[in-house]
């Protein structure tokens, strides 16, 4: 199991487009992927789940990966957050 702490950097927060990006990237990996915010955990491969996080700019999230390719999945996902989903900050 791999865990990572990330922050939402883009100004708009996790709206539809970033949520779709997260789900698309997560689905490329076999590892299970969960996102937790303030004690509320969701399946990171579910766009509806990601949207119900209501994660706005600055929100801190814990990412958990579990599976054979968990390291690669974690790296790809942290990269996505670090780039702020290619959106304005």
């Amino acid at each position, binding site marked *: 199991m791999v865990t990572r702490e990330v922050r939402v950097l883009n100004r708009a927060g996790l*709206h*539809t487009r970033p949520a779709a990006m997260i*789900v698309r990237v997560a689905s490329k990996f076999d590892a299970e992927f969960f996102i937790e915010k303030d004690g509320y955990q969701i399946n990171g491969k579910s*766009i*509806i789940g990601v949207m*119900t996080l*209501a994660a706005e700019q600055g929100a801190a999230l814990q990412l958990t990966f579990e599976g054979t390719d968990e390291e690669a999945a974690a790296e790809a996902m942290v990269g996505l957050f670090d780039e702020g989903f290619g959106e*304005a900050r």
Partner: protein
Amino acid sequence: MPGTPPRPSPVTEAPAEGSGRPERVFTGIGVSPGVAIGSIYRFATEQLIESRGPLASDAVPREVARFDQAVLTAEQDLLGIASIAREKLGEESASIFEAQALMVRDESLYDQVVACIQEDRVRAAEAVPVVLAVQRRRMEASPSLYLRERAGDLLDIQQRLLRHLNRRKLIGEIQPHTLIVAQSVTAADLMVLHRRKVLGCALDFGGATSHVAIIARSLGLPAVMGLGDLSAAVQGGETLILDGFEGTVIVHPTPETVQRYEHRQRRYRRLLEDQKRLIPLPPETLDGHTVHLRANLELEEELPLLHQYNAQGIGLYRTEIQFMMRGHLDPTEEQLYQTYRRVVEGAAPHEVTFRLLDLGGDKLMPMPHREANPFLGWRGVRILLDRPDLLALQLRALLRASAHGRLRILVPMVTQVAEVDRIRAVARLVRTELQEDGHPVAPQVPLGIMVEVPAVALMIDHFARAVDFLAIGTNDLTQYALAVDRGNDLVAGLFEDMHPAVLHLIVRTVDAGRRHAIPVSLCGQLASNPRATAVLVGLGLRELSAPPSYHPEIKRVIRSLNLPEAEALAQQVLVTEDTETMHEILDTWLDEHACGFRQIFEAQAPGPTSSPSA
């Protein structure tokens, strides 16, 4: 606005449901012009299936398979719609449908629905709303406006799944040349319906400014919204008349009514033919004065209308929809810039006047926000100055777009000169930042204000000194001058945007523009009303901005008048003591000048009104 009106399906002498049924008139809001006559297709997307007791255990795998199939079909639908949307509406709308496609095949939704089917033995059509209701409640309780509005997406996908699961007729099975009656449709539905060649659309919900209404107008599909309980009152198959001018629909029309509307339809078609003749002609009075006709637009997809109607640029580009359509207030600067740039380039060589975000406070507050008196509250520039992030974002996008064509910036709901100064200061700052970042910006970007509060018109010289142009917004100006809320049925009848008091405020503004040598335009609803055109020209206005489909009729009036005549008419109207007399004067004048629109817009009253709806 239809280019060619749709052909009606044949109507029998006796209406479909037997000649015994009484004619019923429903009144709503005409959101897209045209007259359509045909039989009703009842488009029931929302109905939840009633429970029929638990599933037998051997039926469970079949029910799961049905759900699989519905998910697959819904996903394919949405991807198909996304590609249509990309062509017709642009990348932004397409991305919404693509995200909805991801939502229908969401794995946790799928797992939960399948668990419901297997463990609770409920049908998929019952399980889907139960599962989605939990997620929807979570989103609706969110402090983020964006997420609250995204809950609507979940409702959309629920309806789409149910439509497949309930084996109701899909849009694809709708007979062409029918009239759609529904509680509501999505913008996506409307585009597909249009391809199925439906004649028109009558909806229980919605109003003239909704996204669906805008799309209906762009597609030229006659539509009436806000019909209350129409969809509950019809079954489908009945004959229906839809009048997108008056905002009425008539169920079970008598043969006489059908005849009357067929006549109206023919006239409208002739009028459209005749309008084509007017389109290439200049908007000039008989004695050679030009009255510039500009367009009111709010979607970049409407840009082709500029050329179709030969409009001289965009007098009012509303910018709210890009924020609202995306369901949140955070489009990026880049997205806004790209849109504004395409709009400016699309309108070239003419100018585009962008109105800064004109929101009511309720749309912006993170928590449900109530003001005792919202029209006197947190609106327009008041919000922009309280939300510098939003203001700077939009100004950056606009100033960047200014490098690609002629652009003006219009500030809404100004009541103090200091507000203009503050906006100017932010604009200067933004300009410097952009230039430091290496973005080209036009050397001069005119800044103007909406004149929509009487205080501004009364102290107009103070404002005229501080701005580069003035744009009169008659809807709010009328509402504030006459203390009438148009949305309040009890007093809506008192709303009169040609009230002499309003006209006096317009005169003050026009005169100040002349004294200070700055342009004055009028972009409220009054500008779209050909009844008012002669008076407005007579008051000194030389720039009118209206939805392009109204241009031919306005131009018809302009081309049929001499300036001294119009001035005399305006003076006469300014001193009338009651609006009834004023309209008599106008009618006489218009009849003498043989303006065709009266025949189609006014000569035909609707049939007997037995409507129970408001």
